[in-house]
């Protein structure tokens, strides 16, 4: 941990560690194909006393995507040359925090892992040492800390009304909780995760942060850290508080719509790539919210699928903007098409899932129209920055090394590959949704 991250071997040790982590998660995923969930109780305590860890389809999907993102970003940065002592260690910390968060079955433990990953992210966000960036990082830290403490207050409230911290027990006992307290708790949890995801009214910290950050850091923040928000909303909203989610579905739907419209409109009016992608992230978060508000097996599966595809797109785009040379523009276009939902990319199937969700909703015409307009807008702004970056401006600076371009091109091929052969991804999303109550078809 105290090894200097700027040395080549330390950075590569980090890459190897993340590759092993990814391999271990893949093994766990294969084991999960035959059973519903794998559980472990810490410290060998009997069930109900010790803190539970529970790996199920929903957790493994998010853990796999987050750790692939971290692995890719670390690889990219190791090839570029790490410039900060602590970078490899922080990425590994983040990997540990995120994995724990996706597998824990205890709400307080969830908070601890959540803080572990957030603290690594706060430190990561100042990586690069640019003057402007520190301000963005400070706003990010303060706003997200406020979100974390709100979540902590919600944990206290949940413990007070249910007398337990175990997610399964909370879900059962929440049926008897007084409606007023239940709604208050649900709103607090929603705000806490809304801040993390960067939804419309809680988004203001996001653009300054993504604009100044180094590509690898922006990729990590958008592709791995934002998953906390979407996973938290799905796990807590759909998994633990489904009644409250249904009760507030109109508000959630409206916030999702506001996010989509606001994010797309702002992205259209910007020229700097980082800023466009940041506002695009706000818009994309809105789709997840819309899918969650509609709910049911179709909606939950769409929310999971959309989170995964969105993480992939953002990593591809953020890593591609820093590079110069042959094929980089093509990789960027693949990412842009995937954001807009043009076949044959993974984004196409995410959009299809959204359309299916729209058809399952109460007012299908409105939602389908909104998704269509949102996709069209995202196509326009993605193409606009592509034009601005790769056609109009001179390609300044030397060509990036071939290996680094290969990483980005490989990522683009994955996005296309998932668009050509989407069955495993779709099946995984459906399985993840089936974990939730009301998510079983």
């Amino acid at each position, binding site marked *: 941990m105290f090894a200097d991250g700027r040395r080549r071997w330390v950075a590569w040790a980090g890459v190897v560690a993340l590759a092993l982590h990814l391999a271990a998660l893949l093994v766990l995923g294969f084991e999960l194909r035959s059973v519903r969930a794998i559980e472990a109780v810490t410290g060998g305590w009997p069930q109900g006393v010790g803190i539970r860890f529970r790996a199920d389809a929903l957790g493994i999907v998010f853990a796999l995507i987050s750790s692939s993102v971290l692995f890719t970003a670390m690889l990219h940065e190791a090839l570029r040359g790490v410039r900060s002592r602590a970078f490899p260690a922080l990425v590994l910390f983040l990997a540990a925090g995120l994995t724990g968060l996706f597998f824990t079955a205890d709400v307080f433990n969830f908070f601890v892992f959540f803080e572990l990953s957030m603290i690594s992210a706060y430190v990561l966000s100042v990586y690069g040492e640019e003057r402007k960036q520190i301000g963005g990082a400070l706003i990010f830290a303060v706003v997200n800390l406020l979100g974390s403490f709100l979540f902590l207050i919600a944990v*206290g*409230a949940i*413990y*007070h009304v249910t007398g337990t911290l175990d997610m399964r027990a909370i879900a059962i006992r929440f049926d008897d909780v007084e409606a007023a307290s239940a709604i208050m708790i649900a709103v607090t949890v929603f705000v806490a995760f809304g801040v993390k995801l960067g939804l419309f009214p809680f988004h203001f910290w996001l653009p300054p942060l993504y604009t100044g950050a180094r590509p690898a850091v922006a990729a990590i923040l958008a592709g791995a850290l934002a998953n906390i928000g979407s996973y938290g909303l799905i796990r807590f909203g759909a998994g633990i508080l489904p009644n409250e989610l249904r009760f507030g579905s109109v508000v959630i739907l409206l916030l999702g719509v506001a996010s989509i419209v606001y994010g797309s409109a702002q992205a259209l009016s910007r020229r700097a790539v980082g800023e466009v992608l940041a506002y695009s992230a706000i818009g994309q978060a809105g789709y997840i919210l819309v899918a969650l508000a509609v709910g049911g097996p179709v909606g939950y599966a769409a929310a999971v699928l959309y989170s995964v595809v969105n993480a992939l797109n953002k990593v591809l785009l953020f890593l591609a903007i820093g590079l110069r040379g042959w094929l980089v523009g093509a990789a960027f276009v693949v990412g842009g098409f995937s954001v807009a939902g043009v076949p044959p990319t993974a984004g196409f199937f995410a959009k299809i899932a959204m359309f299916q969700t729209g058809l399952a909703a109460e007012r299908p015409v409105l939602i389908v129209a909104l998704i269509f307009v949102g996709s069209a807008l995202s196509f326009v702004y993605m193409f606009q920055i592509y034009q601005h970056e790769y056609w109009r401006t001179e390609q300044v600076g030397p060509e990036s090394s071939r290996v680094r371009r290969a990483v980005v091109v490989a990522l683009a091929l994955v996005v296309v590959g998932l668009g050509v052969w989407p069955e495993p991804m779709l099946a995984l999303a459906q399985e993840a949704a089936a974990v939730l109550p009301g998510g079983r078809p």
Partner: protein
Amino acid sequence: MIVLLSAVIGILFGAGAFLMLKPDLFRVVIGMVVISNAANLTLMASGLSRGRAPIHPIAEGEPVADPLVQAMTLTAIVIGFGVTALLLSLVYRVYASHETVDLDDLSHREARVSQELEREEVEI
């Protein structure tokens, strides 16, 4: 007791939120600390029960204080401590590179810098 605690938590949270809205970054950090303590008190209040310390052996039939909230609060205090240190170091970094910790000053400076940049571009 619960009413008293709720009032204290409410006042603490309000004071913290007020401090966070100040332009001075040190006050923002202090506001964060106050809010974190409001959260810690909420945790304590969530399992408030009177009784003996829950240390083995426990006599039958005697009430015992809830140890879980205390453990949670301890963890939360430690996390809050770490986060405060981190925030203060960030503020110090801001001071080291901008020589001010006032957000109004910072935005003035940034506006001036970007204006100068634009003027240079025009001249070019």
